[in-house]
């Protein structure tokens, strides 16, 4: 118990609120499209650079963000802030990720309503989209290499991909919501755990 308290205080000394705020402000200010497009930035800022969370935890937050209300980027920010510095940390990271959007949209709407029509903006966006695709693909490759293991893992990974990506490709008129994929995968995990434990007992 006393060790746990000591660990916690050591942790609070490590992560300053400013660091949390500025990291999430960078994430908010430089990712386009939100959600999954933020993953490469989140990985760099919160896993590789600072070790605030592990890749597993980041995936968990995305899974939870998928079926809880609200914007996924904000949910993830809240999670990481809460984990590092409790309530005040969550407030700081959430404010950090929202602030750039708020300022930029307010200014542009007030002064430059046709911003999206400017050719340079369109061209930059077009180039950026290619980079975002590349960055997400790199993240996916890394994730699959590190986190997807065994037949069960690959089966779920491929199934989730196919269920969400396939209907538009083959022209089906409906989409499968990621919410159902997440719920289904959680149930599959629980069932598999139960079966494995039962097998373990009978041996």
């Amino acid at each position, binding site marked *: 118990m006393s060790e746990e308290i000591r660990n916690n205080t050591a942790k609070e000394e490590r992560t300053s609120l400013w660091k949390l705020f500025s990291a999430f402000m960078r994430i908010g200010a430089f990712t386009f499209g939100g959600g999954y497009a*933020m993953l490469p930035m989140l990985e760099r800022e919160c896993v590789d650079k600072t070790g605030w969370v592990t890749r597993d935890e980041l995936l968990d937050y995305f*899974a939870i963000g998928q079926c809880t209300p609200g914007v996924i980027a904000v949910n993830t920010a*809240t999670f990481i802030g809460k984990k590092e510095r409790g309530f005040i940390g969550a407030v700081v990271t959430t404010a950090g990720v929202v602030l750039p959007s708020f300022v930029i949209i*307010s200014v542009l709407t007030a002064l430059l309503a046709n911003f999206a029509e400017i050719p340079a903006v369109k*061209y930059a966006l077009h180039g950026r989209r290619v980079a975002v695709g590349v960055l997400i693909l790199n993240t996916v490759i890394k994730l699959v290499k590190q986190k997807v293991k065994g037949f069960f893992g690959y089966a779920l990974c491929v199934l989730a991909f196919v269920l969400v990506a396939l209907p538009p490709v083959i022209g089906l008129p409906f989409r499968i919501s990621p919410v159902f994929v997440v719920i289904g*995968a959680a149930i599959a995990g629980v069932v598999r755990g139960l079966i494995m434990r039962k097998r373990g007992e009978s041996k």
Partner: protein
Amino acid sequence: MIYLILIYEFFKIGLFAAGGGLATLPFLSALADKYPWLTQDMISQMVALSESTPGPLGINMATYSGYMAGYNTFLEAGHSVWACRVFGVTTAFTATASLVMPSFIVIMIVARMLEKYKNSKLINDAFSGLRPAVAGLIAAAAWSVISITLFNFSSATFGGAFNFKEIAFFALMMVVTNVKPLKKLHPLVFIAFAAAVGILIGYTIGWGAA
């Protein structure tokens, strides 16, 4: 009054739109039918603006609608344009904060429960299924970005094309982001580089699809 309406409407959207920013779009469209300060024209302009500016889509769209609510309401009441812009910023803040509030509360509760039950077998089993599935979901998101950019893929027309410049640039970026010394660069650098190349090509030889 407009502030109370915004708090009510955006708290509701924040509570019921699960699964990310784009999920708020149908709710915003319903707002445009219900109130005079937002129109369907503004909604389509809002989507274009939100996609060409940084930040989470949901936040961008809430800020835009909130701004329009204040600006148009106070303009109607006969205030000067500059005063309306200031009011617009205050209502934008109200809408954005109200949108974030429900998910903030829910996540705080979920985070506390996770900490409490992090050693439970049930929770760990559930996450052992979730992690590979989320990797698959992220792959699907990557596919949707890539298929639109490289192949103009659209399910409406059930067809596409090969955008050779985009494909070549994609291949180049794939190499650049994976070679040894450059690999460690911040994702920001790649995004800035790609934006610069985008502008350069746009003004010189032109993008096929843009």
